């Protein structure tokens, strides 16, 4: 069967200085098809599409639209050839309405918002969008904004739509709605290109898949003739193991109790409201939710980085009948605790150190003659990260912002290792020997690609930065490990390495908290799944039993998006279920 070609790219090369973003790419986009451009982060997918959309200009090669060679120098040129791109980060004016944004920059006769609104409604009917042209952008949910972007492009008469990672910020329900609209548009004869790195979506929506790797076009295959596994192998260039080895938790014991926690965000509103849950040792607790629904504040609140307005964070240290050590407790603390009756001796008698000299107490403690009566219960509320550390609570946190919070971008790997340990010892100088040993160990064991251990971490690629950070955080053998979006922007291999590390920690009886965005991963990795919505707990579910759709519904239950979006999403989900 002969297909009509909408766009043909021949031998496209684009370099940025010494770096080749695309090399000799040949790619066809057919009329009336959905083509996925698949590849890992940084493989040149977006760059390639930006060249059709007029944002970049290729160094070499030719672009043909409907068989005619063209030069596309600006987005305006692109629109002349009926090409429109929807960028990952929306380019809308917040204080304008949808109609104003759509009309912006288009010279089609007299400026009339009414006419624009009518046309928008027309389009909505045709493709099944839901949008109110008079609504302000800042009042819209992410998926509504995306709809405005799509209509904007259609309004300019585009026949070829390029969507850059359109599903990254959407819930499963919203993704379904989007895919439905895309199918409608395809029926209407439009060509659609989706840039993505999510395999399951590729399989679901596209007719053909073009795989890019390190700037080169590997192959274009028909979706029906391929499998996720095959695509992944093509993307990475070697066989990849896509399984997450989830073991059943062995004897999970409560480690951290979060009770009625309230945390305010920077604007002074409650970002976390009345959140209660328990974190168990030896288990991975996944946290699912639409980005910006309080995940960041929740973790930072627990880690002592944000002030907790109300509620308690109770740390449970299973110390019953275990000896006290000077490892985490100072002599002064031990004396105070003894006076309060925290300890007993091996015979079961109470220890109170009355009339004993410091020397004697030190001897008793070192001889393990002083034992805890009960498990240690510590409230971490209002404690700074340093106080938590000084209490001997090993709480590790892999923050979302790796280079601006977890690490110092301009410092070397060794100096970044020292962040957690530099205070140790009485010397006024920083001891670099241990951090250096740790840095070398992490580079070796996690296979960090770096010129040397003195390289500033900013120069490393995303995956390697994350290996350095996670490596440091787990090196202290934590009791609680919290990770916020630890695989964001990472390639497949690095992502699975991180998943494995989290699983290893779980097997070491660590309480792992994993905030993620990819629901498939969350369901495959977590034992229990906490769904957060609008800063509140929407539900805590068994990740082995729940379905993606159920989680999606929970994610929307209190979401800050308006009721309308929720309703349509729910309706769509119901409809799909019927089918």
């Amino acid at each position, binding site marked *: 069967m002969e297909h009509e070609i909408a766009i043909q790219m021949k031998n496209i090369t684009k370099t940025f*200085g010494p*770096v080749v*973003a695309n090399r000799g790419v040949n790619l066809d986009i057919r009329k009336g098809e959905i083509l996925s451009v698949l590849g890992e982060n940084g493989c040149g997918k977006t760059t390639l599409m930006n060249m059709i959309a007029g944002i970049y200009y290729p160094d070499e090669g030719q672009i043909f639209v409907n068989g005619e060679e063209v030069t596309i120098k*600006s*987005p305006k040129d692109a629109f002349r050839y009926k090409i429109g791109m929807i960028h990952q980060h929306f*380019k809308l004016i917040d204080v304008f309405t949808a109609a104003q944004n759509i009309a912006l920059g288009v010279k089609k006769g007299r400026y009339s918002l009414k006419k624009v609104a009518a046309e928008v409604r027309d389009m909505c009917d045709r493709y099944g969008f839901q949008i109110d042209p008079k609504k302000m952008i800042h009042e819209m949910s992410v998926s509504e904004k995306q709809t405005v972007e799509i209509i904007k492009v259609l309004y300019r008469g585009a026949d070829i739509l390029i969507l850059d990672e359109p599903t990254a910020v959407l819930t499963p329900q919203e993704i379904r709605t989007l895919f439905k609209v895309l199918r409608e548009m395809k029926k209407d004869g439009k060509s659609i290109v989706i840039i993505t790195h999510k395999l399951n979506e590729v399989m679901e929506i596209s007719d053909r898949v073009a795989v890019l790797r390190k700037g080169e076009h590997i192959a274009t295959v028909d979706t029906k003739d391929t499998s996720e596994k095959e695509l992944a192998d093509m993307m990475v260039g070697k066989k990849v193991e896509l399984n997450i080895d989830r073991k059943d938790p062995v004897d999970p014991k409560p480690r951290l109790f979060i009770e009625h926690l309230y945390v305010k965000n920077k604007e002074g509103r409650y970002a976390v409201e009345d959140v209660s849950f328990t974190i168990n040792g030896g288990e991975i607790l996944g946290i699912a939710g639409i980005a910006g629904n309080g995940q960041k504040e929740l973790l930072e609140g627990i880690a002592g980085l944000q002030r907790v307005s109300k509620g308690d964070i109770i740390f449970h240290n299973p110390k019953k009948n275990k000896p006290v050590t000077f490892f985490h407790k100072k002599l002064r603390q031990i004396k105070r605790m003894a006076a309060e009756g925290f300890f007993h001796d091996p015979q079961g008698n109470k220890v109170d150190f009355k009339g004993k000299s410091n020397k004697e107490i030190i001897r008793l403690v070192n001889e393990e003659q002083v034992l805890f009566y009960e498990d240690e219960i510590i409230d971490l509320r209002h404690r700074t990260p340093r106080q938590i550390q000084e209490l001997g609570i090993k709480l590790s946190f892999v923050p979302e912002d790796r280079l*601006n919070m977890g*690490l110092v971008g301009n410092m070397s790997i060794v100096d970044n290792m020292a962040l*957690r340990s530099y205070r140790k010892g009485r010397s006024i100088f920083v001891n670099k020997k241990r951090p250096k040993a740790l840095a070398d160990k992490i580079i070796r064991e996690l296979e960090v690609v770096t010129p040397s251990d003195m390289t500033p971490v900013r*120069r490393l690629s995303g995956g390697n930065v994350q290996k350095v950070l996670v490596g440091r955080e787990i090196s202290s053998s934590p009791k609680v490990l919290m990770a916020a979006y630890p695989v964001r922007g990472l390639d497949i291999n690095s992502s699975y390495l991180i998943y494995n590390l989290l699983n290893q920690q779980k097997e070491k009886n660590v309480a792992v908290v994993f905030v993620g965005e990819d629901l498939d991963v969350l369901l495959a990795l977590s034992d229990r799944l906490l769904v957060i919505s609008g800063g509140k707990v929407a539900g805590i579910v068994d990740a082995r039993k729940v379905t993606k759709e159920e989680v999606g519904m929970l994610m929307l239950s209190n979401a800050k998006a308006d009721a309308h979006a929720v309703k349509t999403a729910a309706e769509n989900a119901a409809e799909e279920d019927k089918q």
Partner: protein
Amino acid sequence: MNTNKKTREPLFHLIKRANVPAWQPWAIRIGALLLGFIIMGILCMISLETNPIDAWKYMFKGAFGIGTTAKTAKFKTLALLRDLSLLLLFALAVTPAFKMKFWNIGAEGQVLMAALFSMMCIQYFGGKVPNVPLIFICLAAAMIGGIIWAVIPALFKAKWNTNETLFTLMMNYVVIQLIIFMIKVWVPNGSQSLAPSAYANLPKIAGEDFWFTIIIALALTAFMFVYLRFSKHGYEISVVGESENTARYIGIKVKKVIIRTLIVSGIVCGIIGFLLVNGINHTVSEKDAGGRGFTAILVSWLAKFNPIFMILTAFLVVFLTKGTEGIMEENQITNEFFSQVLIGIMFLLIIACEFFINYKIVFRHRTAKPQPVLAVSESQAAGSVDDRSGEAAEAPVEGASTALQTDETADQAAKEE
């Protein structure tokens, strides 16, 4: 189509340099210096009708007294050393705060306050307390003065996040007026200056009063280098300077570090004020700091906050000042305008050359065959620069409106990356 494409290829691209060999930045810096001297020579030739080689000779004559009697040469060299060590001390005072990205431009005021405190001690205790204890009292008072003036903006910054640059700048003027006021109090007859005091003067070494300053400058340079590079305090300063978020994340008390660091700055300022009053001037005047508090910013910055390199940059600054003075002297020019122009050109070149250390220019047709590099971050950084310049250079062919648009979108694309 192909010919069309050629006309649209920009004249040059800017490319971020990756993995430069260690010698290259220095070669570029030395190149900038040489270029500066050549431009200086040409300017002197045009406007003063001086042979460029003579102009360079005059510079060395002005700075070291080369080509004069041995006595003048010694005197000039020592004067240069004194100015160098004073400037170096000022730079040492601002550096710890700068490393923390606390832009303290009030070293001038902090030093003057220290000087004023020391002078007060001399005025009120001179003759009543023996000289040796008085010297120590002066030193302590000077340090307290420096600390007070440095810590006030730090407290406000820590507590209410006020802008430290404006704050420290304004505080300079407060001290200047305070000194003028105190001189009025001490010298009621209306002569605007205070006569040198006979009390609490530092002993002269080898008959000169500035050896003290030179020795202390060297000692403090070594101390500051070790403090910033190897101590826990220095490490905390770097972390706070690079990212306050990271500092909070690992439990550094940012406010405490800000205040502590400014105390260190204040102590150094105190030492400078003490040296000025008790070692060099034996009096106080609002012109004592002589703008060094501001020049020190340049010295510290050019040396990338490394105290050892600051010896070099301070030397360069002092050499240029003295050297251009030498040229003026030879040509019997009394005002400073021309020497300021020469110094300005030199600084411009030195600062501008940092750009060429980070970026390189690739002209059309000379583009080498690109080699694939795996570092993604580099590609993004390079990408933004490359494309922005590319689009901008293309724009004139397009007409103004499109030019604006392309440029904008390129910017957006760059941000996206």
